[in-house]
């Protein structure tokens, strides 16, 4: 076990993946000498060469479109989108090509592409640097969507995403990059039997009254809320896989607690919270003692940074929802 930041854990996981498989190549803006604006690829170009860690032109559709071609040639491209708000120019390639190519070719062509996206707010940034666009990708059949919440999960799931034969949109909670945690670098991330399955949600805190489902940047917030909760015993579930959703784990919890709060930074309307609410309500109709409540960003553009504390769900808003759920 080593204590390290999530940024370092991702870097270390990427390095492992490159060592393991020479077909893993990286493409992205400023990921080479600079190591990416968040330094997640720091040192990788130096150690693996300019051929495997490629600084790309400033063109996101190009980055993803080129990754499609690289995948057809047998590579496993890991691309970096510099910030959440800059993935949209690549949306067409992602939705029309990356997501559908395997199905279109009746399984003959695989798209083992990982699209890494530092995402979410809370870092005091200017516009387009704090978005949470995960719902767009979760709605898109053919994609998988992962989102780690701590260094150990980041270390493991980035390797699993790269080893996965499906395309994975990999959301990195950028405001947690510098949070530290224990990482077991000896651990073989590709031995996915058991607890290391990236497609399963994780019960991080056991409770009896209310289940709180969350992911990425909100996990720490929700754990803090659970610990701070005096009135109710809160169970915290880190969804981790946003597509496919591990509804079984959430439903099993709700069957015990009877209450569910879903928390995310993204806007509420047609977001992941809605899907989880709809599915869990269908599964646990008779067990639910309160409607599923959502604590989310508002249905507005992400605000100027001086307002983001009001926009982002925080400990108090989570507790408020827990209270409201308990009040039913």
């Amino acid at each position, binding site marked *: 076990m080593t204590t390290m930041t999530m940024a370092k854990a991702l870097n270390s996981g990427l390095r492992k993946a490159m060592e393991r498989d020479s077909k893993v*190549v990286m493409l992205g803006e400023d990921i080479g000498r600079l190591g990416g604006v968040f330094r997640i690829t720091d040192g990788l170009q130096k150690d693996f060469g300019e051929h495997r860690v490629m600084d790309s032109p400033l*063109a996101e559709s190009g980055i993803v479109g080129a990754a499609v071609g690289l995948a057809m*040639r047998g*590579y496993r491209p890991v691309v970096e989108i510099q910030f959440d708000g800059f993935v949209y120019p690549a949306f067409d390639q992602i939705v029309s*090509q990356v997501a559908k190519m395997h199905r279109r070719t009746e399984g003959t062509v695989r798209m083992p592409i990982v699209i890494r996206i530092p995402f979410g707010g809370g870092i005091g940034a200017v516009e387009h640097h704090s978005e949470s666009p995960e719902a767009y990708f979760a709605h898109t059949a053919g994609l998988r969507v992962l989102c780690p919440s701590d260094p150990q999960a980041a270390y493991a799931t980035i390797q699993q995403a790269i080893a996965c034969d*499906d395309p994975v949109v990999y959301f990195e909670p950028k405001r947690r990059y510098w949070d530290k945690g224990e990482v077991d670098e000896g651990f073989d991330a590709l031995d996915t039997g058991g607890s290391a399955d990236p497609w399963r949600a994780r019960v991080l805190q056991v409770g009896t009254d209310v289940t709180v489902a969350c992911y990425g940047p909100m996990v720490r917030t929700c754990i803090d809320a659970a610990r701070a909760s005096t009135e109710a015993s809160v169970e915290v579930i880190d969804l981790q896989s946003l597509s496919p959703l591990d509804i079984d784990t959430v439903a099993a919890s709700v069957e015990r607690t009877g209450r569910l709060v879903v928390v995310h930074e993204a806007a509420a309307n047609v977001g992941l919270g809605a899907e989880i609410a709809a599915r869990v309500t269908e599964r646990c109709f008779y067990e639910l003692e309160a409607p599923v409540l959502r604590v989310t960003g508002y249905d507005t553009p992400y605000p100027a940074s001086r307002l983001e504390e009001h926009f982002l769900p925080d400990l108090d808003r989570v507790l408020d929802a827990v209270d409201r759920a308990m009040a039913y």
Partner: protein
Amino acid sequence: MSDGSRVASAVQLLSPEGERVPHGRYEITLRDSELRELYRDMVLVRRLDTEATALQRQGELGLWASSLGQEAAQVGSARCLRPTDFAFPTYRDHGVTWSRGVQPLEILAMFRGVTNGGWDPIERGCAIYTIVIGNQALHAAGYAMGVHLDGSDDAVIAYFGDGATDEGDVNEAFVFGSVFNAPVVFFCQNNQWAISQPRERRNPGLIHERAAGFGFPGVLVDGNDILAVMAVTREALERARSGGGPTLVEAYTYRMAAHTTSDDPTRYRHAEELEIWRLRDPIERLKVFLARQGIADRHYFDQIDHEANELAVFVRDGVRAMVEPSAGSMFDHVYAESHPLLDEQRRRLRDYEASFVEELSP
């Protein structure tokens, strides 16, 4: 009106009248048997195309995008590829897929609606038709980056239309091809139309002139002259293989049919234009040349026509006999490894559809 007068500056080795014309820079020498093969390819592709159009009229295909008139550009360029090279065609490039060994029924399957694909791209060295305009240019650039990484001397060719050059993706593909010095040939068939939009009205300047601004050469070729197309494409492929990076080839040709079977070109173009281009027909041109040079005789031409008719019968019967996909196959290959929520949907659909069968059974 697009009368093709600008083609004057294009590389040409065979005049519309079927005469060999010299060119200062480009030349090509082909064996007689090769020349006959090219003729055969073009005739068969045209027959495939005509038959497909007929099948669509009869309701056997949902749609068809005709390659009529573009056979020289398509067959000529694709025939320059090696088996291990890779082609990225559009929905109209039947002469390309044909030349890559994609089977006629594989080509038609998508248009019938039994699949969105039709063949194994890796096996054929040829991607599935790309419908979203311009997307495949980037795939080609990326694939070529991979070839480069492999240290291989394979080459890649990306097909797209004149209209496609408007799309950001095609221009980004030029950037990627150039920056990574990728072994890719960008092959633009300027067939004068993008559905109802005439090329000439839309952008001053010819398409191949765009290459210079991205740092690689561009060439204009008479796209209805299969010899010129081959000479130009060969050189571009050689440049790619030998580390010289991309080339943009503009093949000046003409879409002789409607955009697709859903289109009605009488709403936007003059019949006379078509007449002018009929005189430049790529097949007729080669045929006259072969006949004049004594490379092929009427017997040979008759034999090919006969073969074409057999192909038409084969295609007609084959399309009608295509196996309908099963409902459950929608769920296949959405992911390399399926997941529980999708499995549940598949199961539910199966149970649901089975319930009707039960209801109906006595």
